[in-house]
């Protein structure tokens, strides 16, 4: 007998332990729902694109086909997982990840106005703070050294079009 939900659960890299409670939400449910969402957005976004005919395939063909496929699989995933026992959802320690993302955003924001040196250093420092065994003074020094080395490498080695240091009002180096 085909047990639909378990077909999808497979043996993914991080399995939460099964518990024997009633059918319900598991991570596959959320995954499936997200897929339906993504597929839906893609279909809407490509609504106006011509599908084309068989001898002149239009730009809307592949996006829409894949979006429909995605949404369809998402649907089966969601439905299938709802019929199987609920499994505890994975815990997301988002604070560390947020620091990494925040550090990258900081880099993007600072790169042009302030130059490579400050941007690299800030990226290093902010993301370095996410380490559980962080040593602030060590981080400070390491960040400074690394930022200098990296900026120099990319500026002089690769000719990256970004100033090393830009002090507003004074100039760009």
């Amino acid at each position, binding site marked *: 007998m085909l047990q639909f939900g378990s077909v999808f659960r497979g043996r*993914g890299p991080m399995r939460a332990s099964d518990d024997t409670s009633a059918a319900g939400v598991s991570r596959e449910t959320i995954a499936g729902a997200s897929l339906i969402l993504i597929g839906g957005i893609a279909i809407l976004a490509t609504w106006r694109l011509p599908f084309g005919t068989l001898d002149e395939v239009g730009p809307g063909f*592949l996006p829409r086909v894949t979006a429909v496929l995605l949404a369809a*699989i998402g649907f089966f995933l969601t439905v299938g997982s709802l019929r199987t026992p609920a499994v505890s959802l994975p815990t997301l320690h988002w604070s560390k990840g947020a620091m990494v993302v925040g550090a990258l*955003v900081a880099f993007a924001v600072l790169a042009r106005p302030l130059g490579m040196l400050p941007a690299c250093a800030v990226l290093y420092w902010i993301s370095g703070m996410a380490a559980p065994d962080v040593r602030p003074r060590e981080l400070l020094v390491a960040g400074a050294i690394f930022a200098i080395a990296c900026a120099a490498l*990319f500026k002089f080695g690769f000719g990256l079009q970004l100033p090393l240091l830009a002090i507003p009002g004074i100039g760009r180096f």
Partner: protein
Amino acid sequence: MWDNLLLGLSVNFQISWFDLFGFAIPVPTYILLCLAGCLIGTLIGVLPGLGPVATVSILLPLTFGLDVVGALIMLSGIYYGAQYGGSTAAILVRIPGEVTSVVTVIDGHEMARQGRAGAALGIAAIGSFVAGTFGTLVIVLFSAPLSQMALTFGPAEYCSLILMGLLLAVVLAQGSIPKAVVMIVLGVLLSCVGRDQETGAERLTFGFQILADGIDFSVLALGLFGIAEVMRNLDGAEGGDKVIARPGSPYPTWQEIKESAGAIVRGSALGGLLGVLPGSGGALGPFASYAVEKRIAKDPGRFGHGAIQGVAGPEAANNAGAQTSFIPMLTLGVPPTALMALLVGAMTVQGVVPGPQVMTRNPELFWGLIVSMWVGNAMLLIINLPLIGLWVKFLSVPYRLLFPGVLVVSAVGLFSIGNSEFSVILAALFAVVGYLLAKFGFEPAPILLGFVLGGLFEDNFRRALVLSSGDLLTFVERPLSLALIVISFAALLLGLISSSRRKVIFSDDQQKDEMWRM
């Protein structure tokens, strides 16, 4: 034929006499150029985000001052160096520089995490050398018939080949097959972002002008793999001096080499054959090799957890493909990939027009180049085996200092793509996606394959239909195309049937588990 090889060898080992303070100094210039190319190519190819294409295009100007033979020899050294550098990054920091390194990431990085980074790097180098030798032989012996074969491949055959490739990616899945299919489809969808090549219509750009050229591979790869990996490591970290890879013996043991021998041979053959096909060939080699190794392994459960065959086979396929991908360029003048197009450009700058006449008009160039491929591979082996010790040392830096460095280099590299901060932000977004994917039990590797093949599939699909005036049956009417389709579905079916009977053992939670119950 042997005369030609001797000609090539003599070109490579040519000695120029330099005048130094009145003394004539013999210098094997071309060998040194090859060495320099390999070294620089490797060091730059290692940098996350700089795949072989970017590396070659950056270093191309270095060759302008050289003569034709020297320039091409140095360029091929750079090319192989960059490929190996990409594999190094894939193994050490789980960042694939190019689609061909994606497979190496899977088991290679696992090996690194188990303290066997040196073994992985070593077997990659050895496998690549063996494959390179094989590839060079193939070029020498089979250039003509192989290029004929490549010519019979029309758009319909390509579509079927790509379909086979996409289905192969499913076999890569450690987890459930439908989840892998989802990832491939997602990858194809991502490849649609940007301006459609045929009609110029903008698709899925949501108004962002920067997306008009599509998502850059490096942005996707760095985000989904490199940065997401950092996030995952931080997530699980409990504290203490975490090191990315425990020091072990820096080189592969004889046992490991013996175990990998079969994989290397098979990978070389597969990669060499597929590499001749313009476009998708080079990408498919490593994936095909991985699929084959996993199928014929006695305990396939090792794959994904540091199976050395999962590195040896694909790396061999990678390099063999890199060699044989020269064939269409050398014999037909058709550059099969962007990388080859760069090399064609270099040749043109030097005043040589690549094509069938190169063999007859500039035999020293042609055979010198071919032999230099082998020399380049040998050079790589010589350079990199000692370098492995250096890399492993590099890994013993505490992770808390290492990962911010990886992020900085990645960020700057990403910024240089299109000179835009947007690439960094987009990569960060993909990193979040990659992190969530792992948490929800999906794997990112098939996305990259779907991404790369999606565009190729669409192009060829359209072209095939134009050629057949809208007749869908063309895919099954043409014998080669039909054969490929049949093989793909047969392989998929076989994979599904046998996996439902196989019990798989997890090494981390020590549980017996069934792949799926039918």
